[in-house]
């Protein structure tokens, strides 16, 4: 098995060396495709990071009627907490809200405008899913004790729509790219198969199985995929850290993705996509190009 593997690998290397310029073009194309693929992954990781960031800041304020009694308030809190997509519920007593308001805006001479506390009792509700904000706000409005609901639904809707559209556009782009890359690999390997067709026929006549014939080409595809993947990763690692550096000089608090866990996962993904495309492309190419001599 190892013996065969070494033989197949040396066959693949000979073949790569012989195909010269075509192989370079092929590797370059795969590298570029994988770079675009990686850029898409980085962008979508950042968008989802951004969405989560904003979502965690989104909240709904529920203002209660003054007539609501304490036991009703306690019951409401429990009911709100039990609702799906609700992360936390905090009660803000009207006196505390008023004190907070006065502390925040000390310059306004409130006592001259209003004598009594004009603020209602309220709940501050944090959500775990910003997409649900509008529907939850509508639902909350239906409660007997609720005077009014303040939400950031419009902003949340926009964030959700934005992340959905970028995801759809990304998926289309990546599918097209994957397809194009596959075509290029299939055709590159096809050329090396055609160049060796006579040899392959002779091998078949002396008893080689199709998988024996296929292996060197599979390894060739695998190597093309790995080399393209490594080039793309090197480019992305340097490109992205440069981008992060520049970006944070200008907008320091913007939540960019730069934890190693996520980034390594993305780079690993690129390598996997590169190698699978290489292997699959070679497989297709041999199956469709080698003359059937059995």
């Amino acid at each position, binding site marked *: 098995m190892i013996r065969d593997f070494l033989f197949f690998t040396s066959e693949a290397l000979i073949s790569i060396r012989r195909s010269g310029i075509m192989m370079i073009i092929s590797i370059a194309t795969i590298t570029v495709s994988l770079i675009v693929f990686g850029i898409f992954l980085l962008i979508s990781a950042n968008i989802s990071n951004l969405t989560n960031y904003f979502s965690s800041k989104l909240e709904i304020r529920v203002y209660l009627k003054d007539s609501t009694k304490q036991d009703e308030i306690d019951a409401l809190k429990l009911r709100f907490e039990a609702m799906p997509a609700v992360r936390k519920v905090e009660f803000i007593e009207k006196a505390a809200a008023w004190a907070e308001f006065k502390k925040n805006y000390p310059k306004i001479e409130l006592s001259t405008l209003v004598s009594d506390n004009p603020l209602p009792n309220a709940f501050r509700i944090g959500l775990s899913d910003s997409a649900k904000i509008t529907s939850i706000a509508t639902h909350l409005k239906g409660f007997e004790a609720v005077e009014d609901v303040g939400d950031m639904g419009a902003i949340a809707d926009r964030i959700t729509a934005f992340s959905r559209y970028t995801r759809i556009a990304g998926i289309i782009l990546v599918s097209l790219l994957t397809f194009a890359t596959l075509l290029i690999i299939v055709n590159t390997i096809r050329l090396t198969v055609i160049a060796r067709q006579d040899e392959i026929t002779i091998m078949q006549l002396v*008893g080689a199985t199709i998988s024996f014939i296929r292996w060197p080409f599979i390894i060739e595809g695998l190597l093309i995929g790995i080399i393209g993947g490594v080039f793309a990763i090197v480019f992305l690692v340097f490109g992205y850290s440069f981008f992060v550096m520049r970006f944070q000089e200008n907008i320091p608090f913007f939540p960019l993705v730069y934890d190693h866990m996520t980034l390594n996962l993305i780079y690993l993904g690129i390598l996997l996509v590169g190698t699978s495309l290489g292997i699959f492309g070679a497989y297709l190419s041999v199956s469709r190009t080698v003359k059937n001599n059995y």
Partner: protein
Amino acid sequence: MIRVKNVRKVYPNGFVALDGIDLHISRNEFVYLVGQSGAGKSTLLNMLYKAETPTSGDIYIDNISLSGLAPKQVPYLRRSIGVIFQDYKLLPRRTVYENVAFALRVMHFSRFRIRRQVAQVLELVGLQQKMHNYPSELSGGEQQRICIARAIVNNPPVLLADEPTGSLDPDTSWEIMQLLSKINARQTTVIVATHNKAIVDDIRKRVVAVENGRIIRDEQLGLYNP
């Protein structure tokens, strides 16, 4: 062991190369296939290892029908049939040694056995000196001997030789035919397609004569001409 039953072969261009062929060859037999150029000798041999398939009729090897053989099984059939090709079919970018060795590699022989058997067989055909040359650096006769070495290197039970002496001088032809006789003597069925009258008449064996795609004569210890 080899049974050809009412085989007809029509090439895609409509040419009828063989028609109504019936032939039975026992284990360890030695058979000459003679006939004019274009008679259909190579076509018949090629069908025995499924390089060509009959248009109708069937061929059985060890009672296995070749028409019923799954494509997956064909490589294993071919490993049991050594073929000396009329046009050698050598790999131009590989050395003599590699050309012979890769037949064993295809069959997953160990590196040790490959080295040993290739060395033995190259010595047998007298090419051990040219082991590291490329086929283009050898004469026609030497190339033919690489092809012979490759065909017999794994001791297949059947050996098909299509004009094995086609480009050899009389002395070397004689040696090669002696070699084929020797291989036949160690439990190998040998079928030789040839135009070499001198040899057929000298080393007397069964003779099957083909003319215009039909068998016209089949005799034990026959002569090249009736």
